[in-house]
């Protein structure tokens, strides 16, 4: 019987401070046992429990893409006991990861479709995984137009800035980067909140166009009416939820919204599914 609570041991290979407030760091992990990387086979949109020995576990979306081999990456906001301790850890230290957990974005449904990615703040991690995966030469032809609307408070709060710049220069993905306010006179992208930019830049709805939204509650609250106005059906709006979790496998009982467990039946749901459940997230 495989023990779903046992983490794979990993070593911290690289730590990147992502944002100007230094509250977001990306951790690159390498598996100590080479066979474990194959067992940790994942799809974009899944998450894992990062296990900091002696402190506990935290559920974090996988930021690396299944197309990137030899490591896994997670971007972690400094919030509580485990994430704060993790932020103080150094390259070379040993910890664990447990997963992959949860469903993923519905890649079978999205194949052959237009994809509109709408992200805000630090909820861009599994969206990065998705973009890198879709842009991989082996995958790009599986999708039609890809639009990305991504906003942060300031330019210095955007995640993965080098990659955003690289994607800006490509012609097979339309990037709409925005900030609430720019203090940088050389800022050459959009200024405005994500809902407003969505209204201006998102393609019109049709049966072949799906929107993936991931961001803080306030962004979701004001973006959803915009998508309604653009005509997106609720089964064409895909969302990834967060809730407090422990087990990650649908057993410990805390992350449910109605009969669905966010950890096992989610974290990805369509808005149509969410409309039928209590909004306990």
């Amino acid at each position, binding site marked *: 019987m495989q023990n779903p609570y046992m983490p794979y*041991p990993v070593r911290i290979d690289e730590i990147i401070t992502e944002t100007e407030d230094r509250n977001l760091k990306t951790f690159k992990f390498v598996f100590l046992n080479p066979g474990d990387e194959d067992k940790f086979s994942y799809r974009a949109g899944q998450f894992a429990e990062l296990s900091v020995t002696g402190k506990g576990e935290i559920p974090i979306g996988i930021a690396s893409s299944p197309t990137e081999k030899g490591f896994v990456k997670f971007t972690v906001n400094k919030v509580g006991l485990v994430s704060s301790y993790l932020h103080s850890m150094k390259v070379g230290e040993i910890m664990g990861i447990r997963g992959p957990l949860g469903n993923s974005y519905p890649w079978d449904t999205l194949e052959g479709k237009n994809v509109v990615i709408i992200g805000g703040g630090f909820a861009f991690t599994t969206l990065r995984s998705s973009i890198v995966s879709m842009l991989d030469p082996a995958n790009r032809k599986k999708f039609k137009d890809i639009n990305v609307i991504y906003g942060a408070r300031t330019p210095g709060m955007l995640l993965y800035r080098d990659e955003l710049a690289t994607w800006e220069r490509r012609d097979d993905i339309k990037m709409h980067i925005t900030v609430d306010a720019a203090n940088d006179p050389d800022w050459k992208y959009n200024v405005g909140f994500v809902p407003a930019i969505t209204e201006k830049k998102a393609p019109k709805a049709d049966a072949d166009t799906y929107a993936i939204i991931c961001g803080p509650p306030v962004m979701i609250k004001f973006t959803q009416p915009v998508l309604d106005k653009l005509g997106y059906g609720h089964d064409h709006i895909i969302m990834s939820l967060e809730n407090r979790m422990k087990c990650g496998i649908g*057993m410990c009982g805390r992350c449910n919204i109605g009969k669905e467990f966010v950890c096992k039946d989610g974290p990805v749901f369509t808005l149509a599914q969410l409309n039928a459940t209590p909004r306990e997230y």
Partner: protein
Amino acid sequence: MKVMKIDKNDWAGGIGKIQSSYRLYGPVKGDAFHDFKALEKGELPDLNFLNTRISPKSVVYPQSEIMFEYSLDEKNPDHHIMKDAAKDYSPKAILGIRPCDAASFLLVKRNFDTTEYKDPYWIRSYEATTFIGYACNNPCSTCFCTTAGSGPFNEDGLDILLTDAGDCWYAKAITEKGEKLLNAAGWNTIAAGGSLKKIASLKKEAEAKISSLVSTDQLNNKKTTELYEAPFWEDVSFACINCGTCTFLCPTCWCFDIQDENSGCSGVRMKNWDSCMFPLFTIHGTGHNPRGTKLHRVRQRFMHKLKYYVDKYENGIQCVGCGRCIRSCPVNIDIRRVCDMMNSYDPEACACPVK
């Protein structure tokens, strides 16, 4: 299956024999209440009880259980790597468990033994256990097992059913596991032909004594969001103090937490019972709490047992009708009343009668 007759004089001897090949658990009287305990060699279970105050779930699923051990000492080559803690899954038996409590393990099994994931601690412990049930000749006034998928002589989840027939015990072997234990005890006198008839009549008598009932037939047809928004939750939760007694005593409550506990340069990762009654159960790192009020939490408890579970497994409610939460609630919240409110809820109906 066979029914054995156990002479009351052979009782203590048989128990001693069981203890040579099983770790035996049974009801023991404390200051005021009975509870299940591991019996010492030669210690007899005290079957002079209606039911224990706390359910016997901890025999399979301890309140606190170590999963892994680790070292934080960098001189240790395996430092910071989780290692399986030593476990004892040798045969154990629980004697005197009431049929409702035995049935509860089958409900909980659906959570821990799934097609995608298996909780090895719960499953191995459950599989190592032989369940020796004790039929209820005299149910309590708070028992509603007969309408909650169980009953005073219900055999689901049991390996043996013991019936007190006055001058002797009848032991009905229900599974092979049960027969094995009866052999180990040396209880191998086959009861006379009338024993099944006698058990059936005691069963009928006991069932007739259960006067408290719930209706659950409409729960599946109700819309989740409508039940969730029903106005009665305000009233149901008003007196609740979120003490968590109901979830702690409940045989079918399984929620847990995972914690690391360090001592010097080593530590353990463990599973501990947790409760949906506590705000910390669901609070986010940001301080946001999706179940931030006691109304949310009381509603979660009842919706989980009587709606989400019903919809998820399509196999009845997550309750066996033992009545412990009713007996021990300090503010008299009664699951039977809530169940009936949910089962009969009609969002179209006016809250007050129109004259």
